[in-house]
Every structure is written in structure tokens, then in C-alpha cells.
């Protein structure tokens, strides 16, 4: 029973904290989600799972951006085709690269995001 509880509560706690940061800053939830997911999932699966986890959070922020009139779908359409080609390449790269390389690239992204946030 206790083991089961632990299994359920850890993702829930990770989700709560990720969502809180994502809502507070409008983005960046993935940076928080990865360390949480990596506690119980190996690196490649953690990154794949992260995309699935951030998607609903992103949809809810997109809805609030659209309803506030900050952006419309037509603003985004010129980028979507290239973005989708990138997505296919990204899923291939994630599978091909070693877990260690993925960890290194991700930590560089974290540092870059940190610098941007501190000096924005």
C-alpha cells in the first residue's frame, strides 16, 4: 500500500511544482520537469515523457494568450511546417544520441536559460 502511494505521489508532486513555475513564468516548466522525471525514468524516456507532460500545460497557456488577444493562430502558421520537420528530426536525434550527450546538452540549455532569466 505504502509503495503504491509513493509511486502516485511523486509524479503528482513533480507536476505541482512544474506547473507552478510554468504558470508563474509563462514557460520553462520543462527545465523543472526533467529533473523530477529523471528520478524514476532513464534520460531518453524522461525527455520524451517531458514533452507529453508539458503539452497540456502549454495548451492552457496558449488558450489564455489567445483569449487575451496577445496572439492569434495566424501569427504562428508560417512557422508550423518547419517546426514539424524539426520535430521529426528531434525525435530521431533523441533516440540516436547517447544518454550522456543528452544530459550534457540539457545542462547547457539550463545554464543558458538561467543567464537569460537572471539578466532579463
Amino acid at each position, binding site marked *: 500500500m505504502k509503495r503504491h502511494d509513493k509511486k502516485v505521489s511523486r509524479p503528482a508532486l513533480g507536476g505541482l511544482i512544474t506547473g507552478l513555475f510554468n504558470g508563474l513564468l509563462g514557460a520553462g516548466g520543462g527545465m523543472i520537469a526533467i529533473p523530477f522525471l529523471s528520478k524514476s525514468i532513464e534520460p531518453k524516456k524522461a525527455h520524451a515523457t517531458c514533452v507529453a507532460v508539458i*503539452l497540456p500545460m502549454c495548451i492552457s497557456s496558449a488558450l489564455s494568450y489567445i483569449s487575451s488577444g496577445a496572439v492569434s493562430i495566424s501569427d504562428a502558421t508560417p512557422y508550423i511546417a518547419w517546426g514539424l520537420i524539426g520535430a521529426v528530426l528531434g525525435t530521431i536525434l533523441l533516440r540516436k544520441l547517447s544518454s550522456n550527450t543528452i544530459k550534457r546538452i540539457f545542462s547547457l540549455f539550463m545554464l543558458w536559460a538561467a543567464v537569460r532569466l537572471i539578466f532579463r
Partner: protein
Amino acid sequence: MSAEAVAALVAGIFSAMGMGGGGIMIIYFSLFTSTSQILAQGINVLIFIPIALLSVIIYHIKGMIEWKIAIPFALFGTLSSYLGAYLATVTDDALLSKGFGILLLIMGIRQLFSSKDKKLPKKDSGQKFI
């Protein structure tokens, strides 16, 4: 290929890898266009949706998504993001960004210099998804 195509392509690659490709579009907008910050963020959020949808479908087919963890994580995350968005309206934005930035800085440095492999469930480590 135009700068906008390259930016969207690279953003797609990193977004699909769960690396936070959003920053790439923001940089493109600030370097090459006069798009406002809020519009840039809005476009960024919007283009992530089809990119993430396609990636999730591909990863699901390859068996790379741990749904048992993803579902409660996403559910609680989506709920608390509303709380976060509300808190953002009542707290100091600049202080918040700096605090989060420092947290990421520490986490990033730790991760960059961390030992090669952490203890993980054996059956999962070294698995290939081709």
C-alpha cells in the same frame, strides 16, 4: 532557407527533444524582427503545440513515454499552472525571474559536472529505441 525557417526548424528539433526549444524562437524574434515580447511568447507557445503533438505520437509508437508517470504529472501540473499564473499577477516579476534563474544555474552546473550514470532501474538503462 530564410532565418524564420531555420529558427522554426531548430526550435522544433530542441522542443521535440524536451530541451525547451522555446528560447530559440524568442532569440530569433528579438534579433531579426521587431516583434513585441508578448507576441513572441504567444507565437512560441502556439507553435509548440503541433510540434509536441507530433513528437508525442512518435515517442508513443516507439514506447518511450511513461504514461503512468506522465498522466498524474500533467494533471497536477496543468492545475497548478493556473495557480502559478494567478500568483504571477501578485508577485514581483523581476525577483521571480532572478530567483528561478539562480535555481537553474545551480541545477545546470550540478548536472553538467555530475557523475556519468546515476542509479536507475536496471531493465531500463542502455535501452535503445530505434
